[in-house]
């Protein structure tokens, strides 16, 4: 509880601390001072603020602390408990999602394509409330080729025609009509032909200028692999209720492909494909996604790891402006020290190349100093001070 005068005083003290202490800590200080059951005096406020500053400074990481090692152990130890649950899949309705250790490895390896790419697409206000409208958009997204809705085809060599029989159930499921298929076929340049419709589920395409069977077979292939609708890479799109709105969850991811589709709230689209986020939204977004995805995996397994360790991982992965994996082709492989690289993988190759190039080992890091039995530069050992003796 604070009197008006004291509240002003506290605000004033807090504003002085803005550059030293993060906002969240100050906000907490303000809230708890206001919520305290006893009215605080000026002296007490001074004391509290002083204690907060001291406590904050005490909990800062010391210069020279080996934060990388601490992060590695803090993620690695709970990670060992995950190994038993390797290849654990949890079904989100009909979709499979890679979780647990395989997913964690995928993230730190910075694979180009995740093993189960997935998007969560949020919709704009006018679409998100209605299941029908959401389903309509979902159908528009699903990548559908002619062959997906075809039951069987016949080739008639006498009249040089292709008979396509459609599967009624598939047509309904994918939300495609025969007219859509006809339109898609008409866009193709496969010579001169006429299209007949003997019944509801059949199209007969008769060619007038094809002279051999090979071209006829080729034409069939072209027709079957024609896209009717959809976004490339999206195999399925499912509408799901999340909170009080409908969202679309897709099997397959194509962030670039869904740009500009009406009804989609691009601002909130989520994907688990790191590489797509990097190329469409930039390196900072990729950094944030790495943090979120690792956190999600760990939370999912019930492992409690401080976010600071995870953020260190994502920070180091995105430092050079592109996503680098933690491993041979990324962070470890680009270390300047020859011995540190040799200690990791393919020892002989690194030593050989280094000697051929005439590389210099500077002994600045941890690994190389341990190899030759020198104290490592950590903590207070980081300081380089030399005494200059003067004559008395």
């Amino acid at each position, binding site marked *: 509880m604070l009197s008006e005068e004291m509240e002003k005083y506290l605000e004033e003290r807090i504003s002085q601390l803005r550059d030293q202490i*993060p*906002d*969240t*800590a100050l*906000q907490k200080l303000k809230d708890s001072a206001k919520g305290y059951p006893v009215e605080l005096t000026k002296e007490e406020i001074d004391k509290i603020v002083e204690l907060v500053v001291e406590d904050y400074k005490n909990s800062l990481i010391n210069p020279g602390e080996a934060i990388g090692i601490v992060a590695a152990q803090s993620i690695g130890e709970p990670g060992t408990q995950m190994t038993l649950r390797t290849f654990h899949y949890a079904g989100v309705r009909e979709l499979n999602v890679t979780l647990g250790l395989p997913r964690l490895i995928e993230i730190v390896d910075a694979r180009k394509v995740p093993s189960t790419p997935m998007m969560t697409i949020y919709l704009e206000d006018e679409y998100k409330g209605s299941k029908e409208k959401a389903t309509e958009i979902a159908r528009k997204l699903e990548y559908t080729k002619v062959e997906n809705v075809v039951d069987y085809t016949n080739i008639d060599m006498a009249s040089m025609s292709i008979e396509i029989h459609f599967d009624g159930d598939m047509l309904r499921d994918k939300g495609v009509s025969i007219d859509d298929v006809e339109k898609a076929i008409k866009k193709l340049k496969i010579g001169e032909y006429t299209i007949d419709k003997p019944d509801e589920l059949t199209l007969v395409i008769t060619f007038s200028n094809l002279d051999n069977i090979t071209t006829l077979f080729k034409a069939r292939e072209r027709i079957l692999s024609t896209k009717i609708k959809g976004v490339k890479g999206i195999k399925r799109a499912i509408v799901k209720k999340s909170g009080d709105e409908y969202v679309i969850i897709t099997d397959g991811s194509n962030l*670039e492909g869904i*740009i*500009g589709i009406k009804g989609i709230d*691009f*601002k*909130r*689209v989520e994907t688990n494909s790191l590489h797509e*986020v990097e*190329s*469409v*939204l*930039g*390196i*900072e*977004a990729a950094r*944030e*996604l790495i*943090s979120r995805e690792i956190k999600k995996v760990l939370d999912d397994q019930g492992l409690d790891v401080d*976010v*600071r360790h995870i*953020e260190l991982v994502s*920070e180091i992965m*995105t*430092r*050079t*402006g*592109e996503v680098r994996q933690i491993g041979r082709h990324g962070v470890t492989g680009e270390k300047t020290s020859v011995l540190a690289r040799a200690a990791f993988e393919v020892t002989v190759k690194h030593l050989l190349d280094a000697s051929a190039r005439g590389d210099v080992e500077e002994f600045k890091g941890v690994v190389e100093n341990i190899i030759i039995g020198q104290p490592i530069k950590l903590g207070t050992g980081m300081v380089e001070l030399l005494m200059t003796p003067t004559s008395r």
Partner: protein
Amino acid sequence: MRSASKKLDPTIHDLVPKHEVLSVEEAYTVLKQLGIGPEQLPWLKATDPVARAIGAKPGDIVKITRKSRTGGEIVTYRYVISG
């Protein structure tokens, strides 16, 4: 890079924090305060979609205001490199 035909401003997306190009004076003050050279900052490629959206050129320093999980809003910098 991809996406030349479909123009969309990446900065509107939730994952993308606020990026601003610093003026030369501001950049100088920042580096002085940190006591480092520009290349010691994390890098940002000039071809990065966000860098292109805000018009950052190689040699610029970009100020990034992120929402941190632990410290409210935090400010970091990236040095724009060519590539």
